[in-house]
């Protein structure tokens, strides 16, 4: 299937990540990445990032209030997630890790459902087939293979969908993404490996994760083009992803994208990042905030005014309130669900275990 081996040089990342917006909002044209978004879409990107941040913050609060067991914030990574997910069509599939609230909101996945994993109500509470958005995946990197298999499956019947899998800088060290990229290259599977390089795997900084010049340099080893973008620049992220997606859709195969970003929050609400990174580092990172940058750009383009600001804030607040209410109101899971969907035709021995629990519950014991 890989009859025509590509030239290595085409696969290597450019020396600088693609970058279209400066922190102050100044836009740089890049002929390789022309902007194909209208004003409404530009505002939409901004809106999605703001809503993401608001819901993210709400989730952190909900955790503090004991409503969630734990939560993995995507603060600082809104551009990377929104920009990339926005480059897909609704028919395309997303295979997230556990940090992709932003990508989920782009797909209109109900955040209340999504957060049930963190609430501990159910192991998942959304049907992946409704928004073509897979289950969150905790074992690092494993979902890369599911995305690849899915993409192979689509290609086998000429279905033009593309799959996108998210994982982190740490995830690039696991065996599974390696095997996934190998398979994707060989089968020309239309899958995009989207790495949010947020500089840390919990406490482990990137330089402890790999000695590679950049993560995108891994791609050539699988015959994939390795792209890099400023992951705090939603336009650059969108443009780079868009190109990779269209390339994949047209049958030219998978791609790898490294989005350079920064995890502004703790790894999860259980983490204490003061143990391993400085206030100064954090302050430095804050200067590259993806939302402020896009706001600056919209302002320069006269697309940002009070009406829009209020509208976006309202929507963010509304969504957050809905999420908050949804989480507070969500029923606890039904203990009898423990025995559901384990086997389609359970054995007698299994049924006895189920009956024992049922009896306990009836006896008011559990």
């Amino acid at each position, binding site marked *: 299937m890989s009859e025509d081996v590509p030239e290595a040089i085409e696969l290597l990342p450019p020396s600088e990540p693609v970058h279209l917006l400066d922190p102050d909002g100044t836009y740089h044209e890049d002929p390789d990445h022309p902007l194909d978004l209208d004003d409404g879409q530009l505002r939409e990107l901004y809106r999605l990032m703001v809503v993401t941040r608001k819901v993210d913050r709400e989730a952190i609060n909900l955790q503090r209030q004991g409503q969630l067991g734990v939560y993995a914030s995507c603060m600082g990574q809104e551009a990377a997630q929104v920009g990339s997910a926005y480059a897909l069509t609704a028919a395309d599939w997303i295979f997230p890790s556990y940090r992709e609230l932003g990508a989920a909101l782009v797909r209109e996945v109900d955040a209340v459902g999504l957060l049930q994993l963190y609430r501990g109500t159910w*192991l998942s509470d959304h049907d992946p087939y409704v928004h073509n958005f897979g289950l969150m995946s905790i074992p690092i990197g*494993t979902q890369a293979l599911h995305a690849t*298999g899915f993409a192979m499956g689509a290609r086998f019947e000429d279905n033009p969908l593309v799959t996108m899998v998210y994982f982190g800088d740490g995830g690039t060290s696991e065996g599974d993404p390696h095997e996934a990229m190998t398979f994707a290259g060989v089968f020309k599977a239309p899958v995009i490996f989207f790495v949010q390089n947020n500089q840390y795997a919990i406490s482990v900084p990137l330089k402890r994760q790999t000695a590679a010049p950049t993560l995108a340099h891994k791609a050539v080893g699988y015959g994939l083009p390795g792209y890099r973008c400023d992951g705090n620049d939603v336009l650059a992220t969108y443009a780079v992803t868009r190109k990779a997606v269209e390339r994949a859709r047209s049958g030219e195969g998978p791609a790898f994208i490294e989005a350079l970003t920064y995890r502004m929050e703790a790894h999860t609400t259980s983490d204490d990042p003061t143990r391993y990174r400085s206030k100064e580092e954090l302050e430095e990172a804050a200067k590259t905030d993806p939302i402020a940058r896009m706001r600056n750009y919209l302002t320069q383009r006269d697309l940002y005014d009070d009406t829009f600001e209020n509208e976006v804030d309202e929507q963010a607040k509304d969504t957050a309130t809905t999420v908050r209410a949804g989480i507070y109101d969500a029923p606890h899971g039904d203990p009898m669900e423990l025995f559901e969907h384990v086997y*389609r035709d359970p054995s007698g021995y299994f049924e006895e275990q189920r009956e024992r629990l049922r009896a306990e519950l009836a006896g008011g014991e559990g």
Partner: protein
Amino acid sequence: MAVTLAQAINAALADAMEADDRVLMFGEDVGRLGGVFRVTDGLQARFGEQRCFDTPLAESGIVGTAIGLAMYGWRPIAEMQFDGFTYPAFEQIVSHLAKMPNRSRGTVKLPVTIRIPYGGGIGAVEHHSESPEAYWAHTAGLKVMTPGTPEDGYSMMRAAIADDDPVIFMEPKRRYWMKSEAELPVETEPPRQAVVRREGTDATLVCYGPMVRTALEAAEAADDEGWSLEVLDLRSLAPLDTAALIDSVERTGRVIVIHEAAMTLGLGAEVAARIQERAFYHLESPVLRVTGFDTPYPPAKLEEYWLPDVDRILDAVERSLRY
């Protein structure tokens, strides 16, 4: 017509692929070569490179992409070349294949069949003679099947492929060349039923996969000693047919479980635990185990000392009867 176990499984794969064009077969060397045991022989030629294909050398990749293919809507059959080489795929099997239907609350179905040639007795080098079935049977969410006859090889494989739950299909490789006068296609008992291969009254030999034939030979030999042995072929290791076990114990009162896997926490442990739990007063002597030793699988020239054989089984029968 005489058909071997390998041929029967091959026919089942072909018939399943013929019947349902969503069925895919893939793994290492399963295409052009037809598998190192030729179990997939002819499938690529007949169904094309997309229905039966070789993958890169990566077992986690094979199982993980099988999951993705199943999510898309295919019915993947993935071959692990040998028992010992399923271990790189352990995480995908245990953390995803077994759990995803449950953790997705039923929205994701995974009709995946993982074929694993397993067990010893063929003089292979290390890592090629493992019996990892207990790992799978301990893992909730997996069904584990293993045929002991060519007929079951055909029929259970068809059932495994047709099953919407993930199935680990363990193929007793030393029996690939075992013949039966079977007419294919054949439909035997549903896989989750244990089957009495031979009736008897003095004790029950519980066995599966490669040990079915050994148990039958032992039962034959026992006749000479005047012992009437029942041979119960489990067929499904997860779920276990507990009722059939209890039934048999109620008839014979004595049980010897036989498997190649190491004794400690092998299937025999679960069989013994369930029987003493459910048929306590029917047991006239302890459930005994004739199994591989609690050591790594030995080199080829020593495997005969490691593997359960007729003598060891008869010895256990005698201990059981004398108890």
